[in-house]
C-alpha cells in the first residue's frame, strides 16, 4: 500500500499544526464560529445531533493493521469506544470534543492518515473497489490511479471552493463494486484493442434529491490523460455549475440542464486547451505509485484445503460463512474474506475498538497486514490463505464478527439517520436492525439469495437507497417518520435508479412492507437462481404494487 514520502508527511503535519492553532484561537474567542466553521469542516469536523463528529479519510478504503489499531486507540481514548464505517469507505467518530481534535489529528498523522477532504465543496476522498488488487475479474488495480488523483486533488487551490462537493470513484474490474455511475466522475479501467490501459469516463452520476446515473463521456481515455481530462471536467463544472441553489449545484444538474452532448463538447474543448507539460501523466510516475500496491508475495497453494472441507462438512454456520463471506483470490489457494459489520440487530457499520484491534491482529497474522473498508460498510481481509480460514473464522466469531450474511438481505447499508445526524428526517439504523432481525443470517436469508437493501434517513441519500434493489428513504410527514420504498435500483455496471413503488409506510409497518416485497419475489421468481433484481427487471413494479397496496391493508399514509 501507499506510504507517505517526506513531502506527504510534512504536508499532513503542517495541516495538523494549522488546525491546532485554529482550534486554540476559537477556544480563546479570537475566531467566531462563522470564521471557524470552514476550517473545522475542511478538517472533517462536523457538529451533529449530539456532539461533534469527526470523519476520517480512508483513501480508496485501504488501510493496514497499524492504522486500524490507531483507529481503535482513538475510539477508546477520545471517543466512546467505537467508530462507524461509512458508505464512502471512511470512518466517523460520533462523540469527539473540539478541544481534543488537534491531538486526534496528530495521532492520525503519526500513521499517515488525516481528515482532509471529508467535508466541504472540494474533491472528496477518492473511493475504489474494495477488492482492488485481489479480484479475479480485474483489468488493473484502480488504487494507483485513485492515489494519483488524491495527491493531485489534495487542497487543490482551484478546486477547493467548487459549487458543491465532488466525488470521484475508480473501478478496475469488469464488475463494478465501486458504484462509479453514482459519482460526479466515475472512472472504469479498460483496455483498448492495442492492450493499453485507459478509462471509460462517466460524468454526472449522483444520488440525493435528484438522482442520475452517470453518462459516458469517453469510452477510452488514455492513462496519460487522466489528470488533464479530470481537470477539464472540473474546470467546466467550477465555471458553470450553479452557485445560486445548493440543491441544483452538482455537476449532474449541469449535465441535465446543458445536455450530455453540450457538456461533453465543453469538456473536450477545455481538455484540448490544457497545459500538456504540466498534466500529462508520465508512465514512470504511474509505475512508481503502482509499485506501492504490488501484491504481497503469496505462496502458491492448493485450491482445495482438506482442513476447510472437513470443517465445512461438520459446521453448518462455517459453511454459510464460506458461501457468503469468502471470495476467490486471484492467487490460487487464497481467498478474500468479507468481515460483516452487520451482526443481526446491531447498527450497520459500527465497530468497537476491541473489534478493530481484533481485525488488525487478524490482518497481521493472516492477511499480510492489509485491511479494506467497503462502501457497503464491511471490512475485508484481502489476502487469506485458504487453509487458514477455520482459524480466521473462529477468531472473528470470538469477537462477534463472523456473521455469515455478506451480500444477503441482512447485509444492509444504512446511513446514521436521525439517531445521529443533524440533517436526517427519520431513523434508518433501527429500520435496518428490524429488517435484519426479521430475515436473519440463516436458511431464510440464504433462500432469498443476493439482495441489497439500502436505507437513507433523508433525501441526501448517504445510504444509497436509489441504487438498492430495495431502497428505503426515511422522511418526516406531519411529525411522523414515513418510509418511501423504491425497487429495482442497482449500483453495479448495469446501474439503475430504483422506482418508487407507491405511497410510503410508517415506522411500524415498513418492515412488514419489505417482508411482503420479499414474499412476492419468492412467489414469482422463475427458480432459485433468478435473483431479486433479475426478477424485478422481468416483471416490473406491478406485482409488488398489487401485493403492497391491493391485497394487504395497504399503505398507512
Amino acid at each position, binding site marked *: 500500500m501507499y506510504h507517505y514520502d517526506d513531502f506527504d508527511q510534512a504536508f499532513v503535519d503542517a495541516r495538523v499544526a494549522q488546525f491546532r492553532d485554529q482550534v486554540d484561537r476559537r477556544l480563546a474567542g479570537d475566531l467566531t464560529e462563522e470564521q471557524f466553521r470552514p476550517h473545522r469542516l475542511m478538517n472533517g469536523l462536523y457538529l451533529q445531533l*449530539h456532539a461533534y463528529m469527526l470523519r476520517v479519510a480512508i483513501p480508496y478504503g485501504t488501510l493496514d493493521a497499524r492504522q486500524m489499531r490507531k483507529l481503535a486507540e482513538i475510539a477508546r481514548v477520545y471517543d466512546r469506544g467505537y467508530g462507524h464505517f461509512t458508505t464512502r469507505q471512511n470512518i466517523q467518530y460520533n462523540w469527539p470534543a473540539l478541544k481534543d481534535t488537534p491531538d486526534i489529528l496528530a495521532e492520525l498523522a503519526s500513521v499517515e492518515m488525516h481528515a482532509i477532504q471529508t467535508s466541504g465543496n472540494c474533491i472528496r476522498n477518492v473511493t475504489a473497489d474494495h477488492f482492488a488488487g485481489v479480484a479475479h475479474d480485474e483489468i488493473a488495480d484502480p488504487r494507483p490511479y485513485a492515489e494519483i488523483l488524491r495527491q493531485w486533488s489534495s487542497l487543490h487551490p482551484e478546486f477547493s471552493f467548487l459549487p458543491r462537493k465532488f466525488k470521484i470513484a475508480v473501478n478496475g474490474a469488469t464488475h463494478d463494486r465501486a458504484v462509479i455511475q453514482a459519482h460526479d466522475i466515475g472512472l472504469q479501467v479498460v483496455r483498448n484493442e492495442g492492450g493499453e490501459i485507459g478509462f471509460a469516463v462517466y460524468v454526472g452520476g449522483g444520488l440525493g434529491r435528484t438522482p442520475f446515473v452517470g453518462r459516458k463521456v469517453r469510452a477510452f481515455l488514455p492513462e496519460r490523460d487522466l489528470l488533464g481530462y479530470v481537470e477539464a471536467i472540473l474546470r467546466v463544472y467550477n465555471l458553470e455549475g450553479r452557485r445560486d441553489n445548493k440543491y441544483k449545484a452538482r455537476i449532474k444538474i449541469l449535465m441535465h440542464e446543458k445536455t450530455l452532448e453540450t457538456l461533453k463538447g465543453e469538456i473536450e474543448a477545455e481538455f484540448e486547451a490544457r497545459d500538456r507539460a504540466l498534466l500529462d501523466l508520465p508512465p514512470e510516475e504511474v509505475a512508481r505509485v503502482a509499485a506501492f500496491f504490488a501484491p504481497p508475495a503469496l505462496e502458491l497453494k492448493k485450491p482445495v484445503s482438506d482442513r476447510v472441507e472437513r470443517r465445512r462438512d461438520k459446521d453448518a454456520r462455517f459453511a454459510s460463512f464460506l458461501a457468503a463471506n469468502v471470495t476467490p483470490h486471484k492467487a490460487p489457494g487464497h481467498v478474500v474474506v468479507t468481515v460483516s459489520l452487520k451482526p443481526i440487530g446491531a447498527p450497520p457499520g459500527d465497530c468497537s475498538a476491541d473489534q478493530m484491534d481484533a481485525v488488525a491482529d487478524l490482518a497481521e497474522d493472516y492477511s499480510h497486514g492489509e485491511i479494506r473498508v467497503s462502501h457497503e460498510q464491511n471490512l475485508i481481509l484481502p489476502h487469506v490463505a485458504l487453509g487458514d480460514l477455520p482459524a480466521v473464522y473462529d477468531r472473528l466469531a470470538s469477537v462477534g464478527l463472523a456473521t455469515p450474511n455478506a451480500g444477503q438481505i441482512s447485509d444492509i447499508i444504512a446511513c446514521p439517520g436521525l439517531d445521529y445526524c443533524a440533517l436526517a428526517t427519520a431513523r434508518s439504523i433501527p429500520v435496518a436492525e428490524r429488517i435484519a432481525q426479521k430475515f436473519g443470517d440463516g436458511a431464510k436469508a440464504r433462500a432469498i439469495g443476493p439482495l441489497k437493501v439500502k436505507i437513507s434517513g433523508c433525501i441526501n441519500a448517504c445510504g444509497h437507497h436509489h441504487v438498492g434493489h430495495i431502497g428505503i428513504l426515511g422522511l418526516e410527514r406531519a411529525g411522523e417518520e414515513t418510509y418511501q420504498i423504491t425497487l429495482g435500483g442497482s449500483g453495479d455496471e448495469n446501474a439503475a435508479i430504483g422506482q418508487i413503488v407507491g405511497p410510503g409506510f410508517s415506522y411500524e409497518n415498513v418492515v412488514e412492507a419489505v417482508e411482503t416485497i420479499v414474499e412476492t419475489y419468492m412467489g414469482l421468481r422463475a427458480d432459485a437462481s433468478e435473483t431479486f433484481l433479475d426478477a424485478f427487471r422481468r416483471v416490473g413494479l406491478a406485482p409488488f404494487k398489487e401485493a403492497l397496496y391491493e391485497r394487504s391493508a395497504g399503505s398507512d399514509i
Partner: protein
Amino acid sequence: MPDIITANRLADGVVVFQTAESTWSEDFNDAEVLPDAAATKAASARAAEDAARNLVVDVYAVAVETRNGHVVPKALREAIRAAGPTVRRDLGKQAQGLGPRSAPIAVGDA
C-alpha cells in the same frame, strides 16, 4: 407553545440546555420552560450573548409539551437529541439519567 433553549457547548460539543438562572446544564430536566413567544425571545437573546462569548454554539429554541406529566420535546429529532441514540441506550444523556423523564422512544417490534 412552550419552548426551551438548547445549544452545544463549544469546547466539547455536549448538548446543553438553558436554565432559569441563565446558566447551561447538561440535564434536559434543568431546562427553563418558556411559556410564550416573548419569554422565548428574551431567553434566546441571553443565549445569543453566551454564543458571542464563545461558551456555546448553535443556539435554538425547541418546542416542548407535557406528556404524562413530564416535559418532553415535541419533535422526534429533538427528543432523540435530548436523550441519545435510540439504538444505543448506553450512550448520550439517557445513559447518565439526564434525558427527558418520559418513556424511551420505541425502537420497534422486533
